């Protein structure tokens, strides 16, 4: 992460001149150019955040006026709602497996592709590996699901070929793994970021290590990992935010049993719009409360991660 270079402006020494600076011609032009984002931030981020915090303290359906009920939504959510407990468990399991495994797989493949002396046709491999990630999620989840089809899928056929009873992946606890596997299938973007990270590590370091008799594994542990630790950190933070609000996959794979397909994301949607399945239609107030709980969890984990990062993330220039 690049440190933003603090620009020394002539007027920043004293407070009053800073204010004058804020009204200067330069600043006015800045605000003019930044205004699309500033207005957008106020309308589509700042106001919605306040509104959603307020809604979470009300009972609210979109056609009616919000009715203040204090912390009732949160109380119900944390003590009574079985669906919330299921959704939280499913989302946490999904996150705990898909994020680290995704990082490990994309790092592993990036290291494979980064062996310049061995690997030819980098562009081709990269395109092949990246393809699943850019396809429309509805289409790709259909294709993925079709492979695991109990009656007609090639995987069931493989089981039968070996004289085994095929497994119906979607009705057993393996359903969780199908979703995780599907998310891992889209490892492409992570791999490309790691590949760039690996190429940024000076080869001199590896050469020096090999002269000193270090094994490949040792070089990986002592040079590669510290060198790309900022990338791992970035991937982790990003993956966490994405996976805690995962919605689409669970929604697309219609054959998933309900209790396996309730995630925090689907719980918010189901309560707000009364979707198919997901238990309660608690309205937009309740959905907002769930959303804030997701936000809270993400913030806590991210804060812990930031706190822990100084022990393992190396930012120094090599």
């Amino acid at each position, binding site marked *: 992460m690049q440190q933003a270079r603090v620009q020394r402006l002539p007027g920043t020494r004293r407070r009053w001149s800073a204010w004058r600076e804020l009204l200067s011609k330069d600043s006015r032009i800045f605000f*003019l150019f930044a205004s699309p984002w500033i207005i957008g931030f106020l309308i589509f981020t700042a106001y919605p955040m306040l509104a*959603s915090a307020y809604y979470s303290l009300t009972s609210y359906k979109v056609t009616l006026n919000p009715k203040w009920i204090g912390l009732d939504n949160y109380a119900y959510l944390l003590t009574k709602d079985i669906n919330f407990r299921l959704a939280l468990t499913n989302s946490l399991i999904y996150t705990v497996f898909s994020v680290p495994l995704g990082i490990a797989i994309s790092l592993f493949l990036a290291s494979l592709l980064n062996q310049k002396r061995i690997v030819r046709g980098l562009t081709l491999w990269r395109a092949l590996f990246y393809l699943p990630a850019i396809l429309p999620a509805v289409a790709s989840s259909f294709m993925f699901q079709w492979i695991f089809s109990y009656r007609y899928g090639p995987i069931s056929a493989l089981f039968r070929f070996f004289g085994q009873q095929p497994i119906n992946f979607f009705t057993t606890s393996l359903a969780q793994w199908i979703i995780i596997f599907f998310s891992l299938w889209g490892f492409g973007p992570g791999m490309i970021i790691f590949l760039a990270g690996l190429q940024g590590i000076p080869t001199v370091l590896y050469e020096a290590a090999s002269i000193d008799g270090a094994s490949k594994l040792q070089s990986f542990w002592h040079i590669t990992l510290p060198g790309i630790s900022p990338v791992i950190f970035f991937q982790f933070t990003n993956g966490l935010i994405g996976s805690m609000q995962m919605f689409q996959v669970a929604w697309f794979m219609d054959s998933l049993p309900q209790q396996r397909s309730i995630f925090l994301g689907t719980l918010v949607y189901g309560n707000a719009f009364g979707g198919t399945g997901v238990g309660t239609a608690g309205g937009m107030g309740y959905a907002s409360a769930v959303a804030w709980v997701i936000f809270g969890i993400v913030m806590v984990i991210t804060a812990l991660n930031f706190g822990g990062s100084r022990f393992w993330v190396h930012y120094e220039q090599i």
Partner: protein
Amino acid sequence: MAVLVHQRRESTSRSLPRRVRSRAVGSSIVQAIIVYALLVIVSLITIMPLFWALATSLKTFKEVVAYPPVYWPPQPQWQNYVPVFKNWDFFTHLRNTLIIALGQALGCVVSASVTAYAFAKLRCPLRDALFLLVLSTIMLPHFVTFIPVYVIFYNLRLINTFGPFLIPPWFGGGAWNIFLLRQFFKTIPDDLLDAGRVDGASELRIFAQVVVPLAKPALATIFLFSFMGGWNDFFGPYIYLSRKAMWPFALALFALRAIIAGDLPPGVVGSMTQNITMAASLVIALPIAVLFLFTQRYFVEGITITGMKG
């Protein structure tokens, strides 16, 4: 330093006894075999669902349900693709998809580039603080904001219109895009802009005539990202568009989910069967795949900038 190390390495390998050297060559061949084997296995896994979808789309009903499964139909049924175009309101969905994807891409490119220019090249005491705010919005789960945003559009009577897709992109164009373009604009030397300023050109003119032409590759990247985002978007259309005539591909395909999900015999759900649903999935995915293959470079660069310097 690098040269020195290199030379030393050369000399050590040259001074090694022949036996040791040939073992090193042998082990590097083994290593290459292992690396390629792994790459082939992984690409088989990534391609497998696509291959199976293609094979299914070319099968007859009988072949879809056959056991042992037909891996590749002896007589590919290309006519399975006909109902995708004829019975499925294909062109309505295509039009809707294009309106959303192109509209979103255009708005994002224009407003993200204007905003990014401010954060990269213009001066204001609040600039760095505001930029931090831009970056922090990336961390915000969209579930926190989507309900009030829905209520805004509901009150504006814009549900079941393209308004919710065509309006927001003009207001900032997305934090990632701003970030990516700012990184790019920062590489443009200030001297170029100052030359224009000395000549008395307005900032807008400098932006349009100096910066934008230089930033074409970066703008193309943003355009591609947003276009694909719009093409693939499911959640937005799902909450805002309930009228079938407004549906983009993602929703139209989603409506066929029961066909793939259920282990129903072919033909039970409506007139669409598994092979035709797979044909539809491929038809929707194909433009994106082709677009990606031809513009891979932009993608790789865009992802690298956002991922590495974030």
